[in-house]
């Protein structure tokens, strides 16, 4: 099977085997005491039916259940989760095989930002020196719409290093209701790109409509099973250690239908989890495992991803924070924990705390764009275009992130030293030593033109920093590239069978 390559790395082992085992044991101890608070009667039912101790929660005014998952249940059940998860795509070469035992890293967009950063280029003249002229990219914040999501999907299709798509912007159109958000969201993505589309569900009643849409595109139920074009995200646990009814039940429905689902948890070190690595990882690990266990109790063998989104809390206001070294530590540790359980890891990198593209954003993003993938996490989300923690999305930033991820991938590539390389090297050295100029430049050419060696910073400018102008131009170029719309008859069929998709999404496809 064809698939997107991503980058195969030699994983860094931040935690020793000893430390991994300690954290695993600590998570088991958390299951025993204090346990998980569960607000879903359905989820609690699965746990008690399978032998976990479930008692009515006497705290919290008596709502929910306290669940104590026995260690042997965790051990037995977690092994039934597949270690290889397939994510399909409209184009065969865009499919992904996430294999817990192969540290191949893929980069993915993510978040559902409320703010969309629109950009314009303006000219400026120096106050003291009218000859000193500047052109700058200026940003305007506004609410995101489904048209923005369409544009983001279109650009994402053409970003070289974006391996899979999670909707980047919250669609806040007046005519799209909560109940029809999911079908609009998934259609806007699937009709504008050929990569895998993953997303959360706003309304669980829309799950079957989304699946029907994917079936029509894939060419039937059977075809969709073999090529799952869509997958889902459920934040089963709210930190600390509380299983939420709404998302647990969404996850249950997805698991029942056998679609891949991310069991994600996002504790903040210093507010909703201990700030220290040991406590943070023990807790998030327990949160994720509780969801993994539930998924397997619902359907043995349900494909799940170990969804780790650990962040640091910002001390000024207890908002989340991503440009922190601790954020990087947490995420690398989680990738190791996922590997320990044989589960593919959904991880997090590339978010800036600042609201606009620029130096701060680059520094904050680059830290995790480089370090987190070193862990060998399989599916690194949030990696494109995110600013203001995860509240703002910018296409310019996405284009920059794509370039920087490209550099990161080169950085992480495995060394190529083998008998053939040594033979070639000796040949080169001997040949060059027999020339008068002794330059190796001739032997660079093939690799230079094939793109194998680093060509230099794509937005380089020696005179002044015009990186953002370059990114702005690049966005324009990408938006001019063809949009891989679905065939017209497929679109018609979707509109017939799936209610609630706004008509302008279909017209857009027609007019191009």
């Amino acid at each position, binding site marked *: 099977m064809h698939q997107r390559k991503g980058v195969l790395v030699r994983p860094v082992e931040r935690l020793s085997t000893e430390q991994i085992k300690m954290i695993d044991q600590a998570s088991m101890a958390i299951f025993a005491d204090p346990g998980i608070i569960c607000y879903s009667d359905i989820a609690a039912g699965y746990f008690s039916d399978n032998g976990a101790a479930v008692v009515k929660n006497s705290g919290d005014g008596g709502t929910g259940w306290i669940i104590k998952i026995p260690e042997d249940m965790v051990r037995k059940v977690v092994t039934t989760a597949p270690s290889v998860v397939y994510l399909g795509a409209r184009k065969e070469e865009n499919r992904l095989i996430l294999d817990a035992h192969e540290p191949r890293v893929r980069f993915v967009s993510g978040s559902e930002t409320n703010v969309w950063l629109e950009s314009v280029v303006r000219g400026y003249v120096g106050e003291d020196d009218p000859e000193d002229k500047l052109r700058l990219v200026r940003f305007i914040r506004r609410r995101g719409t489904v048209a923005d999501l369409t544009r983001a999907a279109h650009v994402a299709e053409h970003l070289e290093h974006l391996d899979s798509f999670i909707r980047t912007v919250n669609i806040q159109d007046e005519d799209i209701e909560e109940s029809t958000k999911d079908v609009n969201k998934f259609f806007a993505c699937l009709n504008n790109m050929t990569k895998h589309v993953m997303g959360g569900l706003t309304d669980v009643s829309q799950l079957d409509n989304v699946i029907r849409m994917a079936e029509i595109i894939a060419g039937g139920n059977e075809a969709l099973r073999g090529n799952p074009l869509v997958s889902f995200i459920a934040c089963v646990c709210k930190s600390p250690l509380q299983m939420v009814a709404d998302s647990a039940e969404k996850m249950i429905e997805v698991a029942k239908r056998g679609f891949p689902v991310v069991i994600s948890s996002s504790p903040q070190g210093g507010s909703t989890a201990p700030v220290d690595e040991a406590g943070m990882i023990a807790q998030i690990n327990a949160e994720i495992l509780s969801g993994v266990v539930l998924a397997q109790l619902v359907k043995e063998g349900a494909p799940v991803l170990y969804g780790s989104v650990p962040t640091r809390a910002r001390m000024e206001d207890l908002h989340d924070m991503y440009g922190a070294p601790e954020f990087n530590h947490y995420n690398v540790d989680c990738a190791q924990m996922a590997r320990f359980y044989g589960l593919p890891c959904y991880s997090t990198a590339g978010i800036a705390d600042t609201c606009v593209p620029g130096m701060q954003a680059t520094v904050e993003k680059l830290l995790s764009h480089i370090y987190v993938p070193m862990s060998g996490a399989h599916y690194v989300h949030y990696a494109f275009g995110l600013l203001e923690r995860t509240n703002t999305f910018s296409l310019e930033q996405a284009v920059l992130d794509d370039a920087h991820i490209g550099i990161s991938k080169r950085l992480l590539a495995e060394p190529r030293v083998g008998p053939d390389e040594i033979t070639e090297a000796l040949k080169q050295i001997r040949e060059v030593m027999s020339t008068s*100029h*002794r*330059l190796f*430049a*001739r*032997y660079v*050419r*093939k690799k230079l*033109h094939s793109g194998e060696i680093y060509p230099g910073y794509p937005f380089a400018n020696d005179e002044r920093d015009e990186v953002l102008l370059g990114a702005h131009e690049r966005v324009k170029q990408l938006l001019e590239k063809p949009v891989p719309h679905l065939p017209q008859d497929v679109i018609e069929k979707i509109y017939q069978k799936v209610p609630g998709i706004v008509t302008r999404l279909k017209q857009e496809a027609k007019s191009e």
Partner: protein
Amino acid sequence: MNKDDLIKTICDNVIQGRRTKDDEGIDDSLSGTPGVVELVGEALAAEVSVQSILKEGLSRGMDIVGKKFEANEYFIPDMLAAAEAVSAAMDVLEPHIMKAGLEPKGQFVIATVLGDHHDIGKNIVAVLLKGAGFQVIDLGTDVPADRIIEAANKNNAQQVGLSALLTTTMPEMKTTIEAFKKAGLREKVKVLIGGAPTSKEFAKEIGADAHCKDAFEAIAVAESHAGSR
């Protein structure tokens, strides 16, 4: 191959920087096929005129490479490899150029001056000058003035290029020029200087004929000197 195809293939091989059949190119399209050295041999045997080989094969190839370089499609390694291919071809052609009564571009002696071991830039200049059709006599690095004079004299050179990368060896350029004067040879040669710390002002100060900021300027200046002879 007919004559036209031969010339065109020579040109293509220059663009790919292939001297002989063993050389790799920019891609694999010509792998294993004859390079310019073999092709020029074939062309001469097929009685293709020296002029056509030079003009429509080698120079045209080099022109295309130059254009691709300006368009940021090619890089310095591509220029160097193409120039190497041309200079390898020139070695084969040399005796025939004289016979054909064509005017060669002339002899160019180049060296890094005494006390200085930097030669990357000087080598680039040497390779590209060869590729442009000059006969280059490269004396290497750390070369005292008397060896430069001796070589210029012996080869009847029209031009001399001096390279220095250290502020401490720049004065040696002046010493060399003075030595040419003393030997009564200053009028017979044009002196070009280069290397990162040198400048137009410095060239003027020490009485050099030209300063070149890079290899392209070096070719332009050397060609204008050759043309005005």
